[in-house]
């Protein structure tokens, strides 16, 4: 089994004056839950559209499963792109039958995926009678047909109620536990942080960051400190070379560390200086604040 499932190399696409994506490169490995994070219009759907051959790139290349893309690769990829797309006059079951034919898989799987997505009871109802949440779930059902090796989900919780969102997130986690690679595009940072192991951050078509989610959270850890004499503490902290910045938040002092250092290092140093703390805490930086930092920079 090859480790790299998807490799993207300098992919670019322009719509008239707008550079939708600009020389994007990243790899997705087998078993990852890979998040593509970015605000609306950042190029997430364009990237996925190219990977699924509904859009054509201007330049750059990509490979699925280690070879140049071939349409039969997509039979092993389950995907939803933007909105659920089905024949409105056909029932859910008959819509999935068409997909099963395209993917060349057994019709027996249809009931299974309908059950997974909670649509079994409504399977004979026409697609046009479905609510938005049900349509979205049917799209996921279609993507799950033929036991895909990769699942691509573009804003899967868009337009769903909180219950629906929770269900879908649970489903994504369950799917990834089966070893299926998941590529999830979202503008919701919280969503990516909750379910993804890896992330690529896009803004205005440019790749700002690509890597492990922990790399982001470990990047410049923030430490909360407090002592009886805060002003001396600040003075000493400012002299420490692995501390990037120091600021005061009320009674608490926040120190930003360089990558690779943590609370233990700071504690050790301060005790050597004869300073003892009444409060020491690592504040895990949320992906959100990192993301906001990235996009505002």
């Amino acid at each position: 089994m090859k480790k790299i499932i998807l490799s993207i190399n300098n992919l670019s696409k322009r719509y008239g004056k707008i550079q939708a994506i600009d020389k994007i490169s990243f790899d997705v490995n087998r078993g990852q839950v890979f998040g593509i994070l970015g605000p609306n219009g950042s190029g997430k759907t364009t990237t996925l559209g190219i990977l699924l051959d509904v859009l054509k790139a201007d330049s750059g290349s990509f490979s699925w499963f280690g070879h140049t893309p071939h349409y039969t690769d997509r039979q092993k990829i389950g995907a939803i792109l933007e909105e659920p797309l089905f024949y409105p006059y056909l029932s859910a079951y008959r819509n999935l039958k068409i997909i099963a034919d395209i993917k060349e898989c057994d019709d027996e799987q249809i009931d299974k995926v309908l059950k997974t997505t909670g649509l079994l009871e409504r399977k004979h109802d026409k697609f046009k009678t479905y609510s938005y949440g049900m349509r979205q779930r049917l799209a996921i059902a279609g993507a799950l047909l033929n036991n895909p090796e990769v699942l691509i989900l573009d804003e899967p919780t868009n337009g769903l109620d909180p219950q629906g969102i929770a269900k879908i997130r649970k489903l994504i986690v369950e799917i990834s536990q089966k070893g299926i690679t998941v590529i999830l595009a979202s503008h919701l940072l919280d969503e990516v942080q909750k379910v993804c192991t890896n992330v690529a951050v896009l803004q205005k078509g440019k790749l700002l960051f690509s890597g492990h989610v922990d790399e982001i959270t470990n990047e410049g850890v923030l430490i909360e400190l407090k002592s009886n004499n805060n002003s001396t503490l600040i003075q000493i902290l400012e002299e420490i070379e692995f501390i990037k910045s120091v600021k005061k938040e009320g009674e608490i002092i926040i120190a930003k560390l360089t990558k690779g250092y943590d609370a233990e290092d700071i504690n050790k140093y301060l005790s050597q200086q004869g300073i003892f703390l009444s409060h020491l805490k690592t504040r895990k930086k949320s992906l959100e604040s990192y993301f906001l930092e990235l996009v505002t920079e």
Partner: protein
Amino acid sequence: MLKLIKIEFKKILYYKTFWILSSLFLLLLTLVTFGIQGIIDNIINDSNLHSPIPIPKFSIYQFPDIWHNMSFLAGYFKIFLGVILIILITNEYNFKTIRNNIINGLSRTEFFFSKFLILILLAIFTVIVLIIAGLILGYTNTINFSFSIATSQLHFIAAFFFELICYLSFVMFISIFMKRSGLAIGFILLYSYILEPLINYKLPSLLQGLLPISAFGNIIQVPNTQLMRVFGYEFSKSIATTDILIAVVWLLLFSSISWYKIYKSDL
């Protein structure tokens, strides 16, 4: 190929609009083929009331002329068949299910062929209806029936099938570029009945008949009935190779550009 037929079949099997339009087309074709003799008889009767020289009555249902007559007549109604194809193609853009098909693993070329297949099936359906109508009408109206006479002019049916394929390839081409059914139907009507006749009018006579709608119409010429002979007209009783060749060029052009458009563009 079988896979594509299966998929397309599932798309239309429960599509009411398709069955309603197809039934209407079938009804229309039956009414026209079975009713045309009555209309001609009426016209002759009416004009004989005022005409000093009586026009002789004639049957257009006799073997083997019926094949030429029927396929010429049916040619006027191919736009209705075109509408069915337009709807089946533009639906895929309208519902964006073309994206769904590609995402799930159909190649763009397969998608093109699945629509070309529908085109061929529509033409086969029409030709079968025409053959059945021709056999019934010909058998009941030919006095000296013999198998060899009944089948002697069947090449007109083959030519009609070819004409339909060519015409529908033009319809497919417009549908793929317009993407909206109303727009495609409007354009085809405008082009077929106004634009092309106008352009033809301006063209030197040598080039007339080269444009697609005229070229496809030229494959089967006006039938040589007794009526025509009365007026001294003598039309071709055969299919001209040059007419076929011109139509083949259009057919290749329309289908290859349609394929290229699906193959290359954002969907």
